């Protein structure tokens, strides 16, 4: 099967269609004219999504110690500070394991946007890099990477999501073949490919035998023949070769332990998918039963936030160490996304509200020249002080790291649309 075409029918490309086909074809138009852009060498991206809005002041951009429980509460970080492997760069105490890898990561501390503080809107912006519009649905990071680079193996999809499907993760105007395959958790397996509960391999085989007389009737090149081919491919993928990648039980017990709970297992799965050739994997950290609120730590959500941070710390450091040990870290960019950050002050319930004026996102591995932290914020991490980074800039950095020109124009029917909205890669991260 053709590379890039995991989600598409494998045929028809060469067949000249009549009048309507102009509107259905897409192609990358040209290389950008905005001068040279840095070009990284990463081949894969693991995009970790912390839905709800990770509090930067409690994680990667700590400030003086505050107190959420005193009356009145005292603004500042809710935890103690620790040193990292990079002199002068400090994180909070619950990121101790990740701190040891600080030389291979950069906390970009001055990310900001003006999209306000509504979750869905900001989530959409951080995934697509553009505000919503009534005339264009913009593609997500993962879909653009899929469009530009396809999968690294023709046996797997280019883009997978471990989390819930939503439009922000979708392919937008690029069309469904640049969409994702997904699984909601590591137990359930990929939707459509993992066999339904209680249907053993033998029964599945029996079913496919019963299906056989109804297949293979479509004339060549017909619409139905395309479907039949897609069906053969789907049934093949539902077989052991593809599903093996999802079998975490194949990993040594010690390795699974290193990664920690369900979120860690998702990261471990992401590593397996990288090895299998998946280009872009979005991993959602949405284990909201831990504190109810997930990363949206209003009021009481703050109380157990440290459990979330520790879980992130365990999984992220395990992932980095594991990739490094396997020689994959330089080729695999880890990017951490969240829709916005949180203010240094506490709300009346001891939690934190929303803040998009400045927040931290993280980049790790991927062959970048890391420096532990980039950019500077004010005393309570409320505003950028130096080197502000926009979301298009952050995206441009990811694209550039993956060897994709962030100003390249894609075609939305006949309209050229640059991959990022004038995003400039953070040049300091490229050697």
């Amino acid at each position: 099967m053709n590379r890039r075409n995991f989600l598409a029918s494998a045929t028809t490309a060469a067949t000249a269609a009549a009048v309507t086909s102009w509107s259905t074809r897409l192609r990358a138009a040209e290389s950008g004219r905005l001068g040279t852009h840095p070009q990284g060498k990463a081949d894969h991206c693991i995009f970790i999504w912390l839905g709800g809005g990770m509090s930067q002041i409690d994680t990667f951009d700590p400030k003086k110690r505050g107190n959420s429980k005193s009356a009145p509460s005292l603004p500042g970080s809710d935890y103690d500070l620790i040193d990292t492997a990079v002199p002068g760069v400090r994180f909070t105490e619950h990121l101790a394991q990740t701190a040891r890898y600080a030389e291979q990561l950069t906390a970009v501390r001055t990310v900001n946007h003006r999209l306000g503080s509504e979750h869905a809107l900001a989530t959409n912006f951080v995934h697509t890099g553009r505000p919503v519009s009534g005339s264009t649905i913009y593609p997500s990071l993962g879909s653009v990477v899929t469009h530009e680079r396809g999968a690294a193996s023709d046996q797997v999809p280019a883009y997978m999501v471990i989390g819930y499907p939503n439009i922000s993760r979708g392919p937008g105007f690029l069309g469904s073949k640049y969409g994702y395959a997904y699984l909601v958790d590591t137990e359930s397996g990929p939707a459509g490919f993992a066999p339904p509960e209680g249907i053993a391999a033998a029964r599945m085989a029996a079913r496919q035998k019963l299906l056989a007389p109804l297949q293979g009737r479509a004339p060549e090149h017909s619409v139905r023949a395309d479907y039949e081919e897609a069906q053969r491919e789907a049934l093949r993928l539902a077989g052991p070769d593809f599903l093996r990648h999802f079998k975490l039980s194949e990993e040594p017990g010690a390795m699974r332990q290193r990664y920690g709970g369900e979120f860690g297992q998702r990261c471990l799965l992401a590593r397996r998918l990288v090895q299998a050739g998946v280009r872009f994997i979005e991993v959602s950290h949405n284990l909201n039963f831990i504190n109810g609120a997930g990363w949206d730590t209003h009021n009481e959500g703050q109380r157990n936030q440290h459990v979330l941070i520790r879980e992130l710390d365990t999984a992220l450091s395990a992932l980095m160490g594991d990739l490094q040990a396997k020689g994959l870290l330089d080729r695999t960019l880890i990017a951490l996304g969240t829709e916005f950050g949180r203010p240094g002050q506490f709300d009346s319930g001891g939690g934190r509200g929303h803040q998009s004026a400045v927040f931290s996102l993280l980049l790790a591995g991927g062959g970048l020249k890391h420096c532990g932290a980039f950019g500077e914020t004010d005393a309570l991490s409320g505003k950028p002080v130096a080197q502000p980074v926009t979301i298009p800039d952050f995206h441009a950095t990811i694209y550039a790291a993956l060897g994709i020109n962030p100003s390249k124009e894609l075609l939305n029917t006949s309209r050229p649309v640059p991959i990022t909205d004038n995003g400039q890669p953070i040049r300091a991260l490229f050697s």
Partner: protein
Amino acid sequence: MLRRLLVLIALLNAIRPAGLGAAAPAGKVLVEICETGLPAKGEWPESTLVATEAYEEDVFGFFELPQKYITTGIRADRAFPTLVRATATVNIPAGEHRLLLRSRGAARLTLDGKQILATPFDQPRQFAAGNAGELPMEEQATFLDLGPGNRLAPPGNREAWTSVTFSGRAPVTVRLETLVGGVEPKSKKPFRPELGETVVAIALAGSSTWHLLSAGPRRVPYTDRDWATYAEERRERIESMNTAARAGRRAAAAPFWNRRRSAARAWLAATPEETVPALPPGFPAQNAIDHFIGARLAQVKANDAPHRKNGGIDFFREIKPILELNCYRCHQGEKVKGGLRLDQREEARRGGKNDGPAVVPGQPAASALFRRITSTEAEDVMPAKGERLSRGEIELMRRWIEEGATWPDFAEQNFELTPLTDDLTFLRRVSLDTVGVIPSEAEITAFGNVPSAERRQHAIDRLLADPRWADHGTSYWLDVLAENPNLINPTLNNTGPFRWWIYESLLDNKPLDLFVTELVRMEGSERFGGPAGFGIASQNDAPMAAKGIILSSAFLGIEMKCARCHDAPNHAGKQRELFAMAAMLEMKPIKVPATSSVPLDPLRAGGREPLIEVTLAPGTTVLPAWPFAQVSDEVVAAKLSEEPTQSRDRLAALLTSPQNERFAQVMVNRLWEFFMGRGIVATVGDWEKSSASHPELLRWLGREFVRSGYDQKAIARLILGSHAYQRAVDPARQETSPLYHAPAARSIRAEQLVDSLFAATGKPFVVEPVNLDLDSVRTIDNALDLGRAKRAWMLASTSNERDRPSLVLPRIQAVAEVMEVFGWRGARPDAGPGVRVGGANVLQPALLANGTMMTWLTRLSEDHGLTRFALETQTLDQFIERLFLRFFTRRPSGPERIFYTAALRPGYATRVVAAAPAERAASAPHQKFVAWSNHMKSEANTLRLEQQAAARRGEIATPHLEAAWRQRCEDVVWALLNAPEWTSIL
């Protein structure tokens, strides 16, 4: 019956007493709705309020009010809050009985004028904590338990109970009052006007069973099952009341619309008719459409002959794709760069303004097209942007021109007509095309019983009268009009749920000119299904410009998307024109926001002038004006609009006047595309980009549409009755012939597929309520209730941008994931053309093979239609034959019959388990619910994950079929459901 209700309402309005509220007729509950006179604060009015509407009920059980309709029959909101008062004279036997009051809003119950039960006005903690998602789930354990078998209050209800001693000597006047849709005290924003489950129930002394309090002989036990039956029956009655109310409104507006109809007739009389051409000899015809098709086919056969040749380069296969990909961005359609069109033979030969003929047959060197693609000058080479043509492509172009640049009008080589379909294929096709679902076994049988000469027309008439026509049509218009409601916090260019207005319009077969007029007026309810919902575009910098884009494409075939921010190189519409239309919708001058413009300087960085132009500076104020003089003269507005001083009314009249022939033609072209799989103008929403294959037919159909009073079904009847529609598919074709002599199989729409799979299996379509705010703690601006979906189109994006497990609706997700891969869009932030881009992808068969929805459809559970079917007494041969009819509207072939008989033979005779355990009668356990109000709680997330797992497991298998045979039967069902023939319409 409907008329009686109307009369009753009129009567009650006429005899409305001033002070006391009306007395209830004997044996009935009088329900009165009072919109005026309520105190602002949470308290009961001092005096009895005057009713604005009234109707009758049998018992004290309420869950929904009849809709309020205004103007020509569109939904409107009642006051927030509205008081609902239910009164009856009830005979209650002597004794000490228990009485229960349940309600969504504040309620009180009086007996003979004395208040005996009340529920509280506001529940501030619920609203505050619930709005933050932090309501503790433990509270759900405190809901009243009425004892085994009796019903628990649904989420968000308030309840109270007491014991009352009745003398039994005289009938008691029972009065229930409740507030519907109050106002949240802090934000002053209204709540959804819901009744929840507003009931008065009674348990007589010594009895442990509860009944809804009844004014007459009707007995409704208050159990889950009886309530479901009752609600189902009442819902239908409310629907018919709604239908009657809309008809009443339409009738009241008839004088104006009758004038519009006469104006249309006058216009028809004053303009030349389109002559129906003679039928070429030997061409089959069932109506006038076939004359047009036949004549055009004969004409093309003759005209195209000189432009066809054997051998050499094939224009359509080899040249056109290169032009499409590289040149059409700027050189296709009415507005082109340099005056050069490369989408028409004669235009290409004539050439543009600058370089002379683009194509000179036989002479590549003299052809500007060839010169440009081979130029080495950066300022001169084409394409102007993007990569140069490859050497192979240039060589193809050179050879094509050298060989004479043959360029037929149509790609057709073969002009053979396919014959009529067989009857059953026709029935399946026409059922899917009209009601959106395959025919049932009963429909197939009835069809067969009609004499063969009348069979097809009979089926067409039956299907056009079927209310499911509205379901199928709604799925189309939701796309075209970009309906995009969000269940929670609408911020992604969301609209209101005007789906209900679309649905009711189709149910009433509303004339399309009226439909468009209502849409443009944007009146009625924003959040509960009026066309006002179309007027919303959340977080959009120029909502009315966004609506202008939708309207111009939907109804005029004029694509204005680019004009949102600039003048495009390839579309005639200018930004100023779009904003002039937006100002008409805004009903005042409109300022172009800076965010709706493109700074050109960065685009000039490359040296060459940008292809786009910006002629409207950000900040410019644009006055309301009709921008489409090319389709209709603005003077028409003064004559044809109901309120000529209103710019929306003027716009509506200009869009829909008979003088605007484009409108009627765009509409018939949409219908044509809908049924035929290809538009006469192929690009249905953008007429600049292709021209009509049958201009005379289009004009004739447009005039028929005007003549019919803009009746969609009249046009549908014509198209469906034609030989052209009823022809058999040519299996070798990927696309329907533009000459319509040979159709191709069409891809099934997601909604058709899902509805048909459920219909074929008889599995009930049961998903969660399309609502995340089950208990109504949120105000109308940030939480919608889209009700219980009965058909696939009623679903919506579950909006889980937050990625929170607690906000997943697992059963909806299981169906929506299938629909999405088949082209349905749960979120529609931009206008779709109405034509979905097809094409197979791996996730389609994958989800049909292994998805959760397929687990439900395959498992022979107690509620599954095929379980009942398999228990029927019949031979295995009958079983298989009927299974094929149910699934494929055809009988099994010989080999299929043998194969599936062999598969199901073992154990068939003994498949029925006689002594299966009796059905359980125990009451449902106290089930907790997850809603927005508690979704930030850990327990809510945990519970939702359990629900997700339960959805994935599906229902348990029936004990009435022997397990081994049942499993084999399930495997056969799985195989039949995965047959590729499901995915296309033959």
